């Protein structure tokens, strides 16, 4: 990634203006949905019906309080936070342990485990949906946090192992040798050498997995039918039905729902991009 900063000074070509124009055009396209959300969320409903495209005037901020009214948003938000935190923590721990063994130890079945892992990265969750639901119904895990945390941890585990193992593998061998000579146990090596060195990879992983769990809809829809346990994404689809005739309130709700991840992205853009592209850059 450090290559990104190398300065490449050169004469400006005439085609640069065309390229710049194309970029501006693409950027405008990318901004359309966000601008529509922003603009509509501060219009009154009457204003929206009269003039869908016009700029909002006067600005109306009542839509946000209408959207947040009743505290449902808060409940959905809380549920999403609990599930995301639980699943990401569980997935990271399980993956770090396994990745340590896969990357830094020799054992029979290692290749098999790694290949299975890669294959599972691309198995669609909907394939497991029906059996998991029946199984979880028998076990009384439907409509529980721990049941859904287990599913999300499982679904994100293959990518987590893949990412961490490719990072752990880059750690120099001498590190382990000298630590072993100093009498450090394997657990100690993982805890005080590998994990601290892997901080950037861990941050990347946590961000990417949080984004995935936070945005997930299908599992949340099926496994959390209980009103009190709905996640933000399921809540957002309920909102769609309820406010289909009051688009400004709906857009205010969409904006509130998008805010946490947008802020996380702007704060940790580097880690986001590194994590999302991790799969493709290294073998």
């Amino acid at each position: 990634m450090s290559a990104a900063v190398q300065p490449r000074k050169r004469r400006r070509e005439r085609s640069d203006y065309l390229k710049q124009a194309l970029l501006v055009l693409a950027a405008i396209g990318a901004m359309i949905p966000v601008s529509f959300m922003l603009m509509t969320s501060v219009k009154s409903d009457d204003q929206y019906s009269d003039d869908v495209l016009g700029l909002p005037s006067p600005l109306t901020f009542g839509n946000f309080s209408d959207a947040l009214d009743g505290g449902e948003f808060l409940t959905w938000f809380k549920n999403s936070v609990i599930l995301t935190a639980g699943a990401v923590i569980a997935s990271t721990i399980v993956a770090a342990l396994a990745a340590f063994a896969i990357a830094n130890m020799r054992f029979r079945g290692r290749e098999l485990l790694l290949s299975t892992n890669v294959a599972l990265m691309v198995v669609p969750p909907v394939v497991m949906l029906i059996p998991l639901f029946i199984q979880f119904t028998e076990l009384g895990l439907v409509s529980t946090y721990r049941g859904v945390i287990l599913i999300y941890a499982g679904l994100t585990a293959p990518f987590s192992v893949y990412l961490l193992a490719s990072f752990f593998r880059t750690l120099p061998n001498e590190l382990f040798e000298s630590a072993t000579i100093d009498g450090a146990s394997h657990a100690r090596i993982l805890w005080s050498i590998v994990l601290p060195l892997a901080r950037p990879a861990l941050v990347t992983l946590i961000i990417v997995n949080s984004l995935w769990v936070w945005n997930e809809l299908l599992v949340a829809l099926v496994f959390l039918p209980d009103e009190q346990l709905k996640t933000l994404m399921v809540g957002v689809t309920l909102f769609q039905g309820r406010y289909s005739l009051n688009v400004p309130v709906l857009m205010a709700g969409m904006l509130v729902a998008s805010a946490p991840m947008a802020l996380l992205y702007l704060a940790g853009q580097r880690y986001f991009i590194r994590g999302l592209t991790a799969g493709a850059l290294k073998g």
Partner: protein
Amino acid sequence: MLKVRSHVPYLYCAPLVLLLAVIFAYPIIRVFDFSTRLIRGASGPFIGLDNYRFIFEDPTFKEALKHSVLLLLCVPVLLVFSILLATLLYEQLPAWKFFRTVLFLPYILAIPVVGIVASFMFQLHGPINQALEAVGLDRLAIDWLGQEKYALMTVALVIVAREVGFGIVLFLARMMTLDASQLEAARIDGAGWFQRLRYVILPEIRWTVEFYVVVASITMLAWVFSYVYTLTQGGPGTATITMELYIYNVGEVQSTPGMASAAAVVLLAFTSVLIALLFFARWRAARAEAQGA
């Protein structure tokens, strides 16, 4: 490599293996089993391949399969747009970092949010059509989501618009690792922008292209539920139903898990082909790397 006693690695891997067994292995085994049974509750009598016969006789399943395959047409579109925009960013024109942030922005919005926002933007009298009419393009102001012949195209458009952000960032990150001096040499030799892309950049990023094609294909087959659910719920009629939505509807809404499982097996078969391609691409990339290519 760390020297440890032989049982130690297995202890480290045990939680993962257990987790994967519960969430992937056991359900996948059971989905095959379910697909041959008339499921009532948690199991049911064996009925052979009847569930498969039922789904292949179900016109909705055929529609779902057709649409999922049609959505694969998004892949080349995504590929072209992401490589094109990534090369434009790679030129590091003024404010390119700002453009990168903006172009990635749609990808940060949750899919359900994108779907819902788009479902209003594409309404018959919504902002998109009003804008088209305002600039005199009345003929383009179609009923994007309401008419059967346009709905799937609109869904595809929304998918491409959001997913392209990922492709751009992926290819840009790969291009950033290229040797800039080669490009500079090509430039000095008078190679135009397209020639540099075609003869210098593309050969270098081939593996990333292969990876992206496989990942994007899997996305189209198996990860578009959130788009379809929020944009159209599969409608109008069955005009935008996909495999995922079909499995969800048949299994969870209509409560015929046997048929849903048969459809899941069909979907798994399709993705398995892509998984095999992914392994092939990885293997080739590893071999190329080993040869110092």
